[in-house]
């Protein structure tokens, strides 16, 4: 069965996980539950065939849990202390990171924007967000073209590494110029297609919260409950 979640659900889960796992003490008080929570994003990722991310996540998770047990028994030394802090941090942040990765990987722009608009997100946020994704692609394409062109001109990394500002200039000034022009062109094109700020608009990517979303909301409620109980009870 393929689980399809609404963008709002995904965003909510990401925020809950990132808040609860970092601030709460679920990991120490409810060990089993903590593992279960950490597994949620991994299951979701496997469900949509993002196996590589899922496997990497699982291994990192296993690794930090083991490393934690091992490091905390050692006597004090500065390197150990730094490593311990890193391990602790990863342990707390990783579930949220995996959830975030899931959110980013599985959301399509149209649906996300539609969801945001349903949450009364104004155009001042929604329009820039839409074009952000678009320009992210454009920047990637343009940057790889510029790198190629530099290489053909003999402006290789080896030659320019001695002068990092020049390297930066050759790489990024043309990129900024291209993108800045692209923004102008896009503006003109969008305007001739009737885009205006805060007008009434429909969307072909309407989405609805379904039963699955409800289940996951319940799950989050359970996690919040754990958080509150662990902290204040």
């Amino acid at each position: 069965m393929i689980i399809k979640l609404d963008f709002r659900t995904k965003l909510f889960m990401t925020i809950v996980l990132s808040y609860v796992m970092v601030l709460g003490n679920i990991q120490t008080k409810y060990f089993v539950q903590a593992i279960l929570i950490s597994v949620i994003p991994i299951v979701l990722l496997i469900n949509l065939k993002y196996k590589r991310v899922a496997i990497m996540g699982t291994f990192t998770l296993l690794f930090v849990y083991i490393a934690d047990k091992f490091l905390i028994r050692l006597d004090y030394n500065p390197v150990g202390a730094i490593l311990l802090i890193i391990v602790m941090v990863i342990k707390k942040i990783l579930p949220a990171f995996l959830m975030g990765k899931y959110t980013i990987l599985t959301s399509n722009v149209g649906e996300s924007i539609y969801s945001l608009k349903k949450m009364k997100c104004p155009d001042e946020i929604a329009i820039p967000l839409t074009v952000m994704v678009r320009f992210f692609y454009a920047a990637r394409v343009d940057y790889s073209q510029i790198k190629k062109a530099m290489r053909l001109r003999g402006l290789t990394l080896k030659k320019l590494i001695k002068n990092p500002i020049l390297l930066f200039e050759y790489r990024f000034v043309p990129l900024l110029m291209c993108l800045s022009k692209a923004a102008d062109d896009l503006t003109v094109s969008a305007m001739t297609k009737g885009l205006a700020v805060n007008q009434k608009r429909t969307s072909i990517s309407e989405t609805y919260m379904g039963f699955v979303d409800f289940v996951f909301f319940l799950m989050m409620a359970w996690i919040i409950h754990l958080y509150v109980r662990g902290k204040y009870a």
Partner: protein
Amino acid sequence: MNKRLEVKDLINIGLFSVLGFIFMMIGSFLAMVPVLMPLVPFAQGILVGPVNMLYSTKIKKSGMIFIQSLLIALVYVAMGHGPWALLTAVIAGIIAEIILKSGEYTDVNKARLAFSIAPLCTLGNWLPIFISRNEYIKQMLEQGYKQEFIDKMLSVMPNWIIVVMAIVGIIGSYIGCSIGMAFLKKHFQKAGMEK
């Protein structure tokens, strides 16, 4: 002149938010070496400065830096970094807006100052590290670890380091913006692309 943001402004906000985000990401690779972590805001500032100075030439209305900061923070939130960056983004964004407004959106030096502050919007992303560490220590105390051991751990990464990070961040951004101003003069003004 119409003071509300138009399509053109919003598309520019989108472009420069994504560029700001990309350069911030590049800068954060420095954290791969954990000891260099406090320098990340510095590196981010240098990288993002030139982009932001070009952005400053497109800003003629209020709200554009604020939205940019907010959007960069939002992407981090969606990526699972926690809601903390929203807080710093609002603070940094408002301060930057006020500075920029005081220069009537035309003063380059004010723009440089504003964009020295604005990149601090992502400072909130570091809070979980401090919060979770402090939480952890509390738990360790409960579990019976000695205070002495915990003090030693604290000495590796004291809390005031976040202030240092903010300051080096501002310095880095200032340098980055200055480089950006040089680029503007050398390239963008000459190419007639600064409107």
